[in-house]
Every structure is written in C-alpha cells, then in structure tokens.
C-alpha cells in the first residue's frame, strides 16, 4: 500500500465516519429529527422529503466511499453535499433567514453555527483533497496499465 493510498483510505474513512454517524443518529431518533427539520427556516412541506432524502444520501455516499471503484463518485457527492451544508451554514450566520435554528445531528447538534461552519469547511477540504488524490492515482493506474500493454 503506497502512502497516497493510505491517505486516500484515511480521507474516505473520515468522510464515512461523518456521513454514517450522522445518518444512523438521525434514524435512531427519527421523531426528533423530524422536529429539527421543521425547525429549519424552510417550508414544513419539505420535511417529509428531506427527512428521507438527506440520511439516505449520506448512507449512499458512505457506501460509494467504501469501494475503490465508486470512491471518486463518493468524493464528488460528498463535496456537493458538504458544500450545500456549508452554504446553508453561511446563510444562517448572515441572518439570511428570519431566525437562527438549532444545528442538528447526533453530537454535532452541540456545535454552534460558527463551529458548524468550520467543521463543514474541514470536510469540504477533505473531499477536494480526496478528488485530487483519487484522480492522480487513477491517472497513474491507467498509465501503468497502458505501459504494461506496450
């Protein structure tokens, strides 16, 4: 196992821990999650859709990150989702909405919104790093495969 592979596995593991922890926490206390979703400053009619989509998406990303073949998709999806969460945290902090709701999801709910923003940014950076390293190692493996045919 090369150094790059170890770093890639570690980044994937951190992202898996985040998404799997967040999704399982939501399912374990689903009633509270519904309440917290209603607490967010968008229409409550979105709640039935969001309470199923968000945790399912988090589990799907975790699964994609586990397997080498789907890891790139996992990193990209992780970047998109974490960027959306980050933009949301920024809009909350800028008082874009009428009120500031709670920040939610297992022990993550204990973070304040500025802490939440830093936390999200850290995982955005990890996802970007994952994409870069995964691309490089994919190119490398293609190059090695091509050369082995020559």
């Amino acid at each position, binding site marked *: 196992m090369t150094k790059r592979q170890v770093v890639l596995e570690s980044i994937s593991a951190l992202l898996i821990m985040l998404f799997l922890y967040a999704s399982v926490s939501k399912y374990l206390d689903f009633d509270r999650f519904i309440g917290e979703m209603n607490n967010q400053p968008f229409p409550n009619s979105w709640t039935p859709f969001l309470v199923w989509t968000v945790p399912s998406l988090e589990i799907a990303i975790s699964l994609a990150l586990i397997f080498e073949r789907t890891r790139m998709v996992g990193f990209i999806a992780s970047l998109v989702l974490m960027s959306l969460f980050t933009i949301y945290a920024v809009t909350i902090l800028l008082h874009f909405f009428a009120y*500031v709701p709670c920040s939610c999801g297992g022990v993550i709910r204990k973070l304040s919104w500025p802490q939440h923003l830093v936390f999200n940014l850290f995982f955005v950076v990890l996802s970007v790093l994952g994409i870069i390293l995964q691309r490089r190692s994919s190119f490398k493996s293609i190059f090695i495969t091509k050369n082995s045919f020559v």
Partner: protein
Amino acid sequence: MIMTLAIALSIGGAFATSPRQSQDCQGATQYYFNGNYVLAGRIGIDYICVTPSSSVCTYYKVGTTYTPCMWGTYCTANCRASNPTPKKAKK
C-alpha cells in the same frame, strides 16, 4: 482495515450518543421557565431555541430538580421579532 474501523466507530458512536441510550437530556421532557416551569412542547413544532444566546432555553427534570438542557432563547415563532409569536407546523 481502516474502513472496517470507520464503519464500526460511526455506527457504534451513533448508538452510544443516541438519546435513548445515553439518557441525553434532549430525549427527556422539556420545560421552559417563565416564572414557573412549563411544558415546552415539541421542538421544531411548538418552539425553537434561537442561538446564539447564553440563556437557558429549556430544562429537564432530574428527580425533582429542573436542570438546564438546551441553550438559546425559547421562541415559538417570528423569532427575531421583539415579541415572538408561535411558529406552527403546517398540517
């Protein structure tokens, strides 16, 4: 190996920090204080805790004592207005 550890830690961590398992105060009945301790209702439906705030939003009961649980300003809607009014869930 790393992946197995990550999966085990995240699922185990979620169970360990689940309110039902850890007796997290937020899993208990919540009260707010307005001179007396009153039932707070359901978070997100009957009230929200507006942050940042250094005041106690809700309390929970440990024996006969009311202990601070959630921080923020207890608010039922229009929460940035000076005199908040309830935010009701759409049925």
